[in-house]
């Protein structure tokens, strides 16, 4: 079965939204710890981060919400996604320890490429621009699965699925043995279906954040539409 990963920004409402996403069929929640200067993010995630920060969502508060979310959906892996500056300030090891204590499953540090701080255990990202050598390095050191950035660009919904994805998946299949989840630019059930034909899972961020604005019911319905698309794809390809 193809995995469905939904991105939510840490906020007081996140536990409830995470439960709605899981009810809709999400297998994993990516859990954004907001940063003031998110270089890899497009306008939707950036604005969600600005809002979370304006509501006081600093590292400790994010960890608290992570714990509350874990209590509500204990069987769903929660993967914090953030930027190096937060870890630098909090302490790299302490951050990893406290994430684990709060119920987090690994983490993603968007601005920390595979060859920086190899001792920090995390899910690595590769992009269409990555060389074979870097894909192999990321695949060998990643924590459980590999995040394929489908586009050369920042996060955010796009009209079409990136034409760079098939080539990236083909190379990653040849070079690494872990599951491949694709993200960036995926927003509709049609996208989900076409990406799932290639990768082992999909990550949906910006569009999920927009739908989450409308509340848990809207999010559950949206996630269920993605779930259905993935399961249909799985039925087709066997």
């Amino acid at each position, binding site marked *: 079965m193809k995995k469905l990963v939904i991105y939510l920004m840490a906020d007081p409402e996140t536990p409830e939204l995470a439960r709605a996403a899981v009810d809709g069929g999400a297998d994993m929640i990516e859990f954004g710890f907001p940063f003031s200067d998110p270089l890899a993010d497009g306008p939707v995630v950036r604005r969600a981060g600005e809002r979370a920060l304006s509501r006081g969502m600093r590292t400790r508060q994010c960890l608290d919400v992570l714990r509350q979310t874990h209590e509500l959906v204990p069987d769903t892996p929660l993967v914090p996604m953030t930027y190096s*500056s937060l870890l630098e300030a909090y302490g790299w090891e302490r951050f990893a320890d406290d994430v684990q204590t709060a119920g987090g499953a690994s983490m993603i540090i968007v601005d920390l490429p595979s060859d920086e701080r190899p001792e920090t255990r995390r899910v690595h990202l590769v992009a269409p621009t990555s060389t074979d050598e870097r894909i192999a390095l990321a695949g060998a050191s990643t924590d459980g699965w590999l995040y394929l950035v489908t586009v050369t660009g920042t996060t955010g919904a796009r009209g079409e699925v990136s034409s760079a994805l098939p080539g990236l998946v083909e190379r990653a299949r040849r070079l690494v043995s872990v599951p491949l989840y694709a993200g960036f630019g995926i927003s509709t059930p049609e996208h989900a279906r076409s990406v799932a034909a290639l990768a082992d899972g999909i990550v949906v961020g910006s569009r999920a954040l927009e739908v989450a604005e409308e509340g848990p019911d809207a999010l559950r319905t949206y996630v269920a539409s993605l779930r259905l698309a993935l399961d249909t794809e799985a039925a087709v390809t066997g």
Partner: protein
Amino acid sequence: MTTTTAFGTYGGRYVPETLIPALDELDQGWRDALADDTFHAELHALLTNYAGRPTPLTLSTRFAPGKRIYLKREDLLHTGAHKLNNALGQIVLAQRLGKRRIVAETGAGQHGVATATVCAKFGLECVVYMGEEDIRRQKPNVERMGLLGAEVRPVDFGTKTLKEATSEAIRDWITNVETTHYLIGSCVGPAPYPEIVAELQSVIGREAREQHLAAEGRLPEVVIAAVGGGSNAIGMFHGFLDDAAVRLVGVEAAGAASLGSGRTGVLHGARSSVLADEDGQITDAHSISAGLDYPGVGPEHAFLRDEGRATYVGATDEEALRAFRDLARTEGIIPALEPAHALARARELDAELILVCLSGRGDKDLAEALSGLEKLA
């Protein structure tokens, strides 16, 4: 542990994976260029025949009676500031890398103008990101960039200043990395940018050292320069790093003292000293000078501070404004507000023989400075 770099534990490449191959390519292209005489010859010819190097060294005696303050006149460089040294070097490098599109960030607009200038000269597409607040207070430079054929893209979120303009330029680069060179304007950003910019600006320090020796028969007691991102200062300091007796002083805006009151953090691809809260969130800088209004600083400055080789002090908006006015009245030179910070501290130093980097001219600042001076009176 933190990866060790040329600047101790500062620097590094804290950027999304998408950019790493481009940084590798840039690094290789830069090493190849440094080892290639034709690169140096082409750059030297441009600096001489197009930019107007060497710039003069002017002795000022009326600005600070009792002192001999030498001004390194980067204000007389084509486009009016030291930024052109870096823009010319990087545009030659971009040509070698086969990039046809250039993106840049700008605060005061001087780097934007320098970038628009070199793009016009070399026939390259040019996009400059600039915060809306800076567009307001540096209008003449916005008009110059337009005339030079560059597209100025306003950045209307966050601080609406250099920090956000830099983030947007990097996002553009992430999206268009295969065709685009990011022509960064200061000694900040992921490796190898801080090293590239420092090397391209070190012509300031090399010339100034020679000129000072020729004028005085000895080295200055103190070399002093304004520090925002820190490129004119690092260019000046590089001429004197091995002269242990020469004190190196960087002057930050008091409200943007990344080195004086910052903490170790990660901003725009590098680990350095930044203005941040205890959670690592970058905090706002405040300065009347758009070029210093930045919460980060080049990693090499953080390294020089920790090593004790350079010291960093602050100057307030008010002190800079007074120095701005006083240099105009005593020497007939209108400095930019950025080097006015260095001038403010220079005249109070417990030294007689002082070399100041006059990094740019003040035409762009007239409206802002005159209204600021009115409030002082």
